């Protein structure tokens, strides 16, 4: 094993959980999260020499992961449009609206609520979803999210605020359905 392969292995060990978990929260599918993790590290391997260190390595890896997730969602939506004879879906994330995903790391007693949360997050516009996932689930600070998304801190604050307001509203609508079922 040469030096660069050893570096790559170290890099994988340092960041694979970060990449895998972000993909898992974003796509809510274990197979797809593994596929994305593979794609991300293959890209890192080939473009590590071109990494200009304008941002931190972690930020760069977050960006690659998010781009790969968006590409996969777009691909899935275009496939879905083909199946339903070309009618266009309302947003990139329509395909995932009805999430039935159970995250392996979430406490058993919270699984039902988490399912509802993921399904509701999927109805948000993409930039709100990204900001919310990075902030609330990944636990990044607003300046870190601003760097990843290449936006100002105030823009991130606004995105998170709007995401939370939208989630509140959508969840209150879901609460009435939840009450009827009970």
């Amino acid at each position, binding site marked *: 094993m040469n030096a660069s392969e050893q570096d790559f292995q170290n890099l994988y060990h340092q960041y694979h959980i970060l990449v*895998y978990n972000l993909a898992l929260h974003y796509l809510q599918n274990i197979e797809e999260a593994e596929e994305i993790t593979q794609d991300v590290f293959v890209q890192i391997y080939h473009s590590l020499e071109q990494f200009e260190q304008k941002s931190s390595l972690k930020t760069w890896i977050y960006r690659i992961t998010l781009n790969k997730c968006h590409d996969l969602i777009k691909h899935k939506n275009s496939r879905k449009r083909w199946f339903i004879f070309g009618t266009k879906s309302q947003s990139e994330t329509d395909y995932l609206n009805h999430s039935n995903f159970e995250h392996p*790391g979430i406490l058993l007693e919270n699984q039902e609520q988490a399912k509802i949360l993921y399904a509701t997050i999927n109805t948000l516009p993409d930039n709100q979803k990204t900001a919310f996932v990075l902030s*609330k689930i990944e636990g990044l600070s607003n300046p870190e999210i601003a760097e990843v998304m290449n936006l100002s801190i105030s823009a991130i604050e606004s995105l998170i605020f709007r995401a939370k307001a939208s989630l509140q509203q959508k969840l209150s609508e879901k609460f009435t359905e939840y009450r009827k079922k009970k």
Partner: protein
Amino acid sequence: MESQDWINSVLNSTNGHQKAVPRKDLFMQIQARVADYEPISTKILWLAAASLLLLIGLNFRTLWHSQHPTKSAVVQVMAADVNKSNQLYSHE
């Protein structure tokens, strides 16, 4: 109140979650993909780009010549004239 409690429980349902860990053989799969992939060298890319440019240039040249036949006809007449006497101007 009940509604807000339920909303909060949903919003906080991911709090304290454990990080998920991918399959152990994932790195081996990545290594296999990296080994399979042979990147195209920049030399070959530049060569392909230059060939394409040359091809486009030749096409334009051919098109331009086909659209300006009179000029080439004038040149032919002049050449024939020069060949006849081997002089540009006739001596009288």
